[in-house]
């Protein structure tokens, strides 16, 4: 979010959400945290959001933090 545009785009929001979850569980260490983020996204995100984040991870490889990226990577495997 920047000062001029108060509303995040959906893509930005999904990336923000994934990274935010990752930041909050990062203290568990990379592997456990990635598993935790994966589990969280599976449990609480609707399928379309999951597909979008997988697509976003591919489009904008630097947007996701390493933990988030790892988690999304694992989701991608199951996402057809």
């Amino acid at each position, binding site marked *: *979010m920047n*000062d001029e545009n*108060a509303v995040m785009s959906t893509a930005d*929001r999904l990336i923000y959400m994934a990274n*935010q979850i990752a930041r*909050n569980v990062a203290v*568990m260490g990379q592997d456990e945290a990635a598993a935790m983020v994966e589990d969280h996204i599976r449990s*609480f995100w*609707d399928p379309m*959001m999951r597909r979008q984040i997988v697509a976003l991870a591919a489009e904008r490889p630097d947007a996701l933090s390493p933990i988030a990226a790892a988690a999304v990577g694992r989701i991608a495997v199951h996402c057809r």
Partner: protein
Amino acid sequence: MTFTRETDHGTPPAIATGKSVTLTIDGAQVTMPEGTSIMRAASLTGCSIPKLCATDNVESFGSCRLCLVEVEGRAGYPASCTTPVADGMIVRTQTERLKQLRRGVMELYISDHPLDCLTCPANGDCELQEQAGAVGLREVRYGYDGATNMGQAKDQSNPYFDFDPSKCIVCSRCVRACDEVQGTFALTIEGRGFDSKVSPSQGQDFLSSECVSCGACVQACPTATLTEKKVVEIGTPDRAVVTTCAYCGVGCTFRAEMRGEELVRMVPWKEGKANRGHSCVKGRFAWGYAQHQDRILKPMIRSSVTEPWREVSWDEAIAYTASEFRRIQAQYGARSVGGITSSRCTNEETFLVQKLIRQGFGNNNVDTCARVCHSPTGYGLKTTFGTSAGTQDFDSVMKSDVILVIGANPTDGHPVFGSRMKQRLRQGAKLIVIDPRRIDLVKSPHIEAAHHLPLRPGTNVAMMTALAHVIVTEKLYDEAFIRERCDWDEFEDWAAFVSQPSRSPEAVEPLTGVKAQDARAAARLYATGGNGAIYYGLGVTEHSQGSSTVMAIANLAMATGNVGREGVGVNPLRGQNNVQGSCDMGSFPHEFSGYRHVSDDAVRGLFERKWGVTLDAEPGLRIPNMLDAATEGSFKGLFIQGEDILQSDPNTHHVAAGLAAMECVVVQDLFLNETANYAHIFLPGSTFLEKDGTFTNAERRIQMVRKVMAPLNGYADWEIVQLVAQAVGLDWSYTHPSEIMDEIAELTPTFAGVHYARLEAEGSLQWPANEAAPHGTPTMHIDGFVRGKGKFVVTDYVPTDEKTGPRFPLLLTTGRILSHYNVGAQTRRTANTAWHPEDRLEIHPADAENRGIKDGDWVALRSRAGETALRALITERVAPGVVYTTFHHPDTQANVITTDYSDWATNCPEYKVTAVQVALSNGPSHWQEGYAEHSRLSRRIVPLEAAE
């Protein structure tokens, strides 16, 4: 149902000692708990002793002297209200001598009382009148020319009740109710002797006194001195129906006292286990919105939000709703529609809405307003304890020794429980308040927090971890409890984490702004002060780390062994009347009723068999994601029951954009709320007075809501949902909400024992209520945590991205005020506006001075998200650098300011932290004026006749 007053035993029950004594009252042998008054003992055995100053919700006082009795072997005539029973005592309550004395006293009373019984509003409902008859008073020999307290002016300042001092008998019941029950101490007796007078504050009128208008005094008054204006206007009631309040999560039960079809007054029900006969200004008085002229009673539709509304028949509205949703699903796919359940509606109604979405629309796109309040509670407590709910009942607080309140303001937000807590504090329990604001509990008459930790908004996790640091490093934890009840390895991991020097109070002091020594003292007190209970509210959950804070709280309770018995626990103070229930009923997009994940095949199978459809195994969209999807173009239809997301959800621009992008928004509500400005179909809702059902309060207590009058709009809300369901082709055929509850019980193990017959018999039930707990569960996790071992979760402090800077140097936090509820849709339509006619911005004198702001000035409040304007209130309640406001008035639109940052785990919005700037302004902002115009246009209605 005929009208009878609740039995008044005169004095409260004795404090249980386990011992009992046997005595003789009027020849009958009775056994009573030790410490019971003779008056109460007599009343319990069916023998009524005259009384005026005694009533059983305040301590005995012994002033009226009507209740004198004879006790064999004792000189004189002891007052039965102040004399406890004793073994072998022989009491006579009705002798000629006693009659003579009582008549003598009554003659004195009546010698200073008007003789206008026939025209008095309390005629027939007056204890003085009743007792005068009971003692056989036939004449008053003192004359009419003596000194008198009659002829004093009436005080009609309070919008709900009148004070007529001429009728006062100075029994002090009002004063004592204000002190003992409500804990406000707004009343006193002024002067002494014959000149003694009841005085609000310093002989002022009620409205300008310290009175908070809870009405306890009115309820306590035995005469017409304090009388509801409605009683004056309508007359005394002729029947009563017990029902449950539709305001906050305390869940007060009331006797709705009716005269014919008119509601005369709401009298808190003494048997009510949540409120124990008390209430607040909202529940007791602010129900006028139910008959307010703004209420919409006819269904309306329109094809575009720029058009005026067109009133239509119910048939047309329902058919149109069904056809629109079917059309959208056909055009955009099954997942293009969803619904929002209401935390103000009944369990049964909520259950039906989510059933409509899951069964009828075939997806899981259902969410509820708990998303924006206590979703982190659900997540955090489920993760740590295994149940998404508070651990205690409200009575538990009376056994607490240390009460820790964090991010809650019970005296404003949960006033009846706040009064309960104050009672316990006055008994000597210690209080710790963790809150950026100096809330009333920090210091108010007879209450003073042992520690107030005025932390900077957004630093809850750091604060709670610092407390844990002290408890762990000073070895104040309860090792035996942890070893027995929790996973020790997880505890060790957690202990190692919180013990890091960087987590200490000293290390986080620059961050939290809380002095390390205060934090240490508070931690020691909580850990070592006896039964420690934590109560928290939205100040915990509405943060980007809301879930972490909930888990940090749970960690603290487990570490100190403060879970699993009375007097302790982790207690979320739920905002709305049925927010607990709406969550229980499966309102979240990822779970069915009873908090079971939609991906669980066994659970889903159960529902599929019952409902005869295949259900979606994937979680649905949360509210903000629905709005996102709408802006993206994939989400097109939303059914909203009893919520006003435009006003209550964060970042109004975002909500408005999402709603505007949809093709069909259905709003089912009492009023044309703000969200309805973006709606295409309006289905008029019914009030809690007009339907049967149940609400579940913050203590998991399921209570009956009973219909006291026919729905003005024609249908109860559950019937409307059923009509829509039938129109979309579902075979629903409920004839009464009890059948819906039967279905809930069948499908939900924690509700297995909940049926209307059981609720009628028990009065209420706290879930889990099933075979294992046939009478419900007041205290949870007694023999072990629901999830097995209690789970310590490492909660790292991740600061919010919402940061102050040169452009936005202040932190805005938001909250509630006593006289208003939520977005004010109900309370703004009552006389409660007398106390809080507008939202104000609280600002510290230093910050105000820097900006040249004086008390009452219009100020512009700007954040990255938007700008609004309101008037300033200069106060030291807020710390420098922090500003505060409420969001009860749509004109203010505080949520124009709030951002769409949210809790990492649940997306609960970060209402409590917004970086803002405040500057003098001339009046409402451009946006506010534009919105007002939009609202006006959007609320145009073409009546049914004209439309045809």
